[in-house]
């Protein structure tokens, strides 16, 4: 068995060498696994293209040189290779065609479907397609999650924009964008997909799965985002295996998968807005610490401009109370008023600090305003339309 494995590894390295061409080398690490090494080794193809020269002092380079110098078996003639090839083909076919009988056997897909409380309209085959990134080499461009991820991204951003416009109608655009990023940024979706939804990664190579005789339907419920023909190991980076297939990070892959599931749900439910709104509300909407995102450079000036635009009386700061003016730790409480109406209040160890904090408080109260019935976002109309933030 170990001999067969060794032969397969050598021949596998040969086929990979052809595909990687001049940009990489294969080395065998201490654990005996085949890895690609790009950074530390230089690889030069000879004119004939059959043998390679390696120049490096690294210990791995000698292993690679000895590997390339060893005469290779013709893998195509061995029955083991034919068997492996058949396994690979059937795997590829399963991922591309996603037959319902095979998909329904996948326990991981079924549990993911149930865990997310997805409606029955969302087919398991669509869910499996959503876990198939374009960067994985296994399927062609027509059967990956590219289209679904674009649809999901647009649906998500549209619904979340509508939600934020209803919930916080007066947010300035940079804050608004930060909120969108907070709700559906790559990092957020990565954490959501990995730790909340529990999507698993397909980490093992096709070779390992073949050797373990793993059933093909097992892979359908896992996220595939890199070329699973070679092992993905910490410290070994793959890139430019194919020009068309960009290698994406794990975070980006999770993000794409989450967006694709949203897209797939919207597609399979016939673009039903109620279902998708409910799903987004359950999974994506959470409390945003909006006030913490703000940072004002000139709050007093900005408040003056705001009052001018809103046709309010010019804001005036008034000392409300103070304590220990002559001590080393005085406290001043200042309120900012527009006419008789108090807009904000702030405290500080100096009058200037208290005045600035009062203006900031007033601005935050304006920008973070939430209409009373903001939760009723399904209604057709919104109460408040933003006039735009003040330009100072």
């Amino acid at each position: 068995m170990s001999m067969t494995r060794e032969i397969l590894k050598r021949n596998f390295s040969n086929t990979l060498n052809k595909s990687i061409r001049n940009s990489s080398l294969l080395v065998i690490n201490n654990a005996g696994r085949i890895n690609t090494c790009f950074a530390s080794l230089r690889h030069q193809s000879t004119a004939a293209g059959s043998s390679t020269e390696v120049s490096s002092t690294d210990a791995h380079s000698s292993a690679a040189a000895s590997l390339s110098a060893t005469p290779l078996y013709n893998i195509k003639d061995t029955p083991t290779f034919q068997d492996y090839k058949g396994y690979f083909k059937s795997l590829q076919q399963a991922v591309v065609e996603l037959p319902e009988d095979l998909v329904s056997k996948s326990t991981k897909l079924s549990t993911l479907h149930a865990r997310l409380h997805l409606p029955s309209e969302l087919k398991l085959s669509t869910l499996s397609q959503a876990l198939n990134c374009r960067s994985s080499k296994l399927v062609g461009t027509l059967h990956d999650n590219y289209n679904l991820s674009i649809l999901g991204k647009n649906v998500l951003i549209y619904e979340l924009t509508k939600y934020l416009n209803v919930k916080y109608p007066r947010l300035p655009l940079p804050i608004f964008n930060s909120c969108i990023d907070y709700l559906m940024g790559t990092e957020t979706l990565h954490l959501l997909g990995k730790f909340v939804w529990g999507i698993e990664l397909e980490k093992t190579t096709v070779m390992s799965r073949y050797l373990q005789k793993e059933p093909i339907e097992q892979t359908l419920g896992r996220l595939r985002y890199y070329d699973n023909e070679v092992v993905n190991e910490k410290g070994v980076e793959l890139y430019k295996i194919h020009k068309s297939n960009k290698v994406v990070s794990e975070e980006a892959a999770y993000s794409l998968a989450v967006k694709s599931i949203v897209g797939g749900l919207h597609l399979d439910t016939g673009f039903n807005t109620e279902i998708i709104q409910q799903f987004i509300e359950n999974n994506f909407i959470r409390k945003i610490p909006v006030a913490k995102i703000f940072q004002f450079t000139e709050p007093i000036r900005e408040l003056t401009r705001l009052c001018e635009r809103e046709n309010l009386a010019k804001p005036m700061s008034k000392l409300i109370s103070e304590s220990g003016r002559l001590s080393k730790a005085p406290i001043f409480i200042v309120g900012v008023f527009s006419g008789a109406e108090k807009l904000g209040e702030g405290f500080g160890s100096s009058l200037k600090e208290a005045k600035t904090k009062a203006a900031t408080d007033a601005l935050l109260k304006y920008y973070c305003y939430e209409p009373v019935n903001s939760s009723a976002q399904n209604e057709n109309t919104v109460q408040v339309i933003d006039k735009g933030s003040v330009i100072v």
Partner: protein
Amino acid sequence: MLQNISRGALISRAGTFYPLSNVLRLHGSCHYRSIATYLHSGSRVRGLKKNSDEYLTVQHNDKKLHIDRVDLSAYKSEIFDKLNMNKYGIDLDESLVLQCLTHKSFAHGLKPYNEKLSVMGYHFIKYFAIVKDMTKLQNSENVNNKNIIGSAFSKKVLSNEVLNKVFEQHQLQDLVFWKKRALDHNEGNFNGEFTVHSTCLKALVGAILLKNGQDKTSQFFEQEIYHKMVQLASKQ
């Protein structure tokens, strides 16, 4: 800055005469003192306050529009007629229509402007376009149509250039309040017309969406705007 008042004019320290007819505001109600604020017209002079009439007015060819003196009902009905909005039962406030066609560059943001509305509108347009593409993709057997999502053509349909052309087809460009980069340059996109006009169109869609709901907006957008966008993009 202003040194003295004599012979019906203000004289600055630099010796420039400013006519008293420009002194528009009187501040302070104390019986013993009144302060006059000179409002300056023309080129910028440091320290002088600008005459608001100047920056609140926009000039389109020979037509001048002052944002505070616009007949709002006539303004709204003109836009509604040009976009056939009455046909779809759309209702918008007059002030909101004016806000949709006021760009952020106008009057240094002193008047309500369309930035956030345009963001809402743009996300709706993108959503609408992708749903259309996906529907087409589902119904199509042609393999070549499988790659329409995210293609160069679908990006072109949503481009500022195409949206600007749709906006100009409806002849709405003379109703926009914005500040040009340079008044004497009108050729091409030097002043950023594409962006400003497309922003206004997106803002109109966003305002309709927020005030009238998705169904009415989809009907209006598909009939009046989207098919023109596709036509224009395919011509380019």
